[in-house]
């Protein structure tokens, strides 16, 4: 590895550096350090995206897809740190000191950067498992019985699911003699052991991505974690796990593998849409909305070409918009003190800026035009219809419509009913953070041609 190659590891270095400096016990130091670490990680991600070419050596593999995911992770990381600066004071009885919260947040970001930069499926597994280690305590920050229970469910379900992908890794290595993604993309064996390895990897990594049938931890965690943690989970942790699935599919895009991934993607959309209709907790509802979007992304990855482009558009646009939505839910929770939709009335009158943002955010994540999620879904549907005809596409469209109506109807009720119940309150200090994220999500629409350039090698039929 030469000196230039080290630039590719800058996002990891910045966040790890931030985590180490958080150990210094000076008041507010951990916040300043985390902010600097996240901003430098973000700037280095932009540098990699714009100026550095695709790179592969025996450990690191950074191509267009990794660059775009790195950039999204870095952007959501900065916004999470910014939002946490003011949000944490709303947590009355935290499980640990603020310093530890920021330390874990920085480590968590570094494990995600690590996962999307590695050329080795085994090391990607190590990185994704490390995201569980670093984020489990973040889930339990609020230190009440329900959050502790959700953190425990998260640890045991996700870790058990990830053991399946570790088994998959042994199958892949045992049959091919290498775990290098770049090498496996060029040559891989065609036998039953390798195929089983690929399929198990899809199931295993799917656990972390909230893909059916191993998704059960996701609504529990999103429903109980503090808003910034839910935001970073939904915005980028799930796509990082999907990134691993995308790599596995790219290695061996045989009909069995792609059909298997497509089936899981469709089932994920169906289950998430149905579950959304019965939710009474707004954070859980948005968790199922994330699951639905992950299902769409998986469908896109399984289709390749235009579908892959659509999936990447959704990763970026959804990452920004959904993190914004969860930040807004933080404003709502800290004002109303409840996550039950029944308790939230008159949001428009009480917190107009949050209400407007939440309304736009809900539209953005459910794929209302002209938000980029809608464009991404169009790309995926075009490819789905081209490869499989109208049958599956119409089914998925139906369930997307159910999800769209569920989310927007319920959010509309929270915002527009009970008009004069509460007087108008001063907007939360950090409400500008989700507004910026939401605006960036919308603006990403104009960068779609550039995304296409980054993914060029995968888009050629």
């Amino acid at each position, binding site marked *: 590895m030469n000196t230039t190659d080290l630039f590719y590891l800058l996002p990891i270095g910045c966040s790890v550096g931030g985590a180490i400096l958080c150990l210094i016990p000076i008041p507010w130091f951990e916040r300043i350090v985390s902010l600097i670490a996240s901003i430098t990680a973000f700037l280095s991600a932009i540098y990699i995206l714009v100026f550095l070419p695709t790179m592969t050596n025996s450990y690191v593999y950074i191509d267009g897809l990794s660059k775009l995911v790195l950039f999204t992770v870095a952007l959501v990381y900065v916004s999470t740190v910014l939002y946490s600066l003011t949000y944490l004071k709303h947590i009355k009885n935290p499980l640990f000191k603020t310093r530890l919260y920021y330390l874990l947040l920085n480590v968590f970001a570094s494990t995600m950067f690590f996962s999307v930069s590695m050329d080795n499926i*085994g090391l990607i597994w*190590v990185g994704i*498992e490390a995201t569980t280690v670093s984020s489990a305590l973040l889930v339990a920050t609020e230190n009440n019985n329900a959050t*502790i*229970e959700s*953190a425990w469910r998260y640890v*045991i379900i996700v870790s*058990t699911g990830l053991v399946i992908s570790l088994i998959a890794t042994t199958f892949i290595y045992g049959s091919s003699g290498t775990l290098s993604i770049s090498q496996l993309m060029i040559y891989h064996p065609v036998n039953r052991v390798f195929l089983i390895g690929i399929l198990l990897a899809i199931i295993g990594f799917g656990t972390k991505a909230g893909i059916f049938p191993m998704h059960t931890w996701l609504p529990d965690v999103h429903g109980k974690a503090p808003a910034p943690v839910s935001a970073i989970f939904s915005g980028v942790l799930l796509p990082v796990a999907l990134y691993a699935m995308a790599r596995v599919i790219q290695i061996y895009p045989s009909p069995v593998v792609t059909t298997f991934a497509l089936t899981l993607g469709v089932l994920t959309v169906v289950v998430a849409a149905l579950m959304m209709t019965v939710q009474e907790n707004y954070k859980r509802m948005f968790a199922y909305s994330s699951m639905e979007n992950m299902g769409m992304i998986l469908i896109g990855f399984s289709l390749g070409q235009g579908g892959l482009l659509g999936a990447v558009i959704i990763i970026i646009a959804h990452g920004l918009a959904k993190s914004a939505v969860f930040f807004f839910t933080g404003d709502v929770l800290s004002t109303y003190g409840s996550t039950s939709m029944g308790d939230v009335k008159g949001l428009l009158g009480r917190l107009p800026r949050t209400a407007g943002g939440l309304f736009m955010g809900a539209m953005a994540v459910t794929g209302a035009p002209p938000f980029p999620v809608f464009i991404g879904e169009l790309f995926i549907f075009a490819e789905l219809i081209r490869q499989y005809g109208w049958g599956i596409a119409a089914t998925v469209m139906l369930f997307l419509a159910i999800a769209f109506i569920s989310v927007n109807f319920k959010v509309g009720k929270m915002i527009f009913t009970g008009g004069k119940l509460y007087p108008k309150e001063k907007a939360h200090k950090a409400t500008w953070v989700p507004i910026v994220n939401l605006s960036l999500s919308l603006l990403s629409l104009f960068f779609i041609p550039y995304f296409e350039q980054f993914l060029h090698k995968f888009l050629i039929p």
Partner: protein
Amino acid sequence: MNYIFEIIGFILIVLTLLMQWEVYVTNIILLFSLSTVFVSTFLVLLGFSRPEGNYLLFVLAGLTLTIRGIVIPVIMSRALHRLYDKPWRVREDKPMMGVGGSILVSLVLIVLGYYIYQNSLYEVLKIRSGAVPFALFMQASLLIISRRHAYIQMIGFLVMENAVVMLSGWVFSGLPFVVEAGAILDLLGLVVVSSLIIRVREQAIMEEGESYESELRG
């Protein structure tokens, strides 16, 4: 050498069956520690059976013994001591199924693991006793599903990881050292973090008499 591996595999299955049978948490931790000693022995023997590049397997055996066999059980035991006045009397009070039932299901899973292996992978791998890690994996899954106590569920997860080590070494040629070492470090981190979470969780259960799963519904 394959004959010795089969004996070790058989011992591991018996130890996991004993875990199913046992209700006291400290005894289950001890059984896990013992089973890890056998996994380390397996790795050492595997190192001797390989003509070259086997020194990493000895390092891996050392790491496995130290971290999985000693450090992790010690962390869990200490956490138990902090949480309970009489940790040796902590037991699974509300298992999902009785001891007899879980042993029976466990035996069925061993047969099922063997059947799945014979009909899917044996034709390709041609290793007669390759079904052992699969059977171990299924038993570990049962331990997680059938018990409510978080420490026992954690042990179930650790047994699963041991099964993967067996699988990668026995059936295939093992994983690269950097991946195995990363997995062990992840495991250590997970146990440390889980111990904290479990302590708070079990404390709440002791005070209230039940877990808070129902509060997660929405």
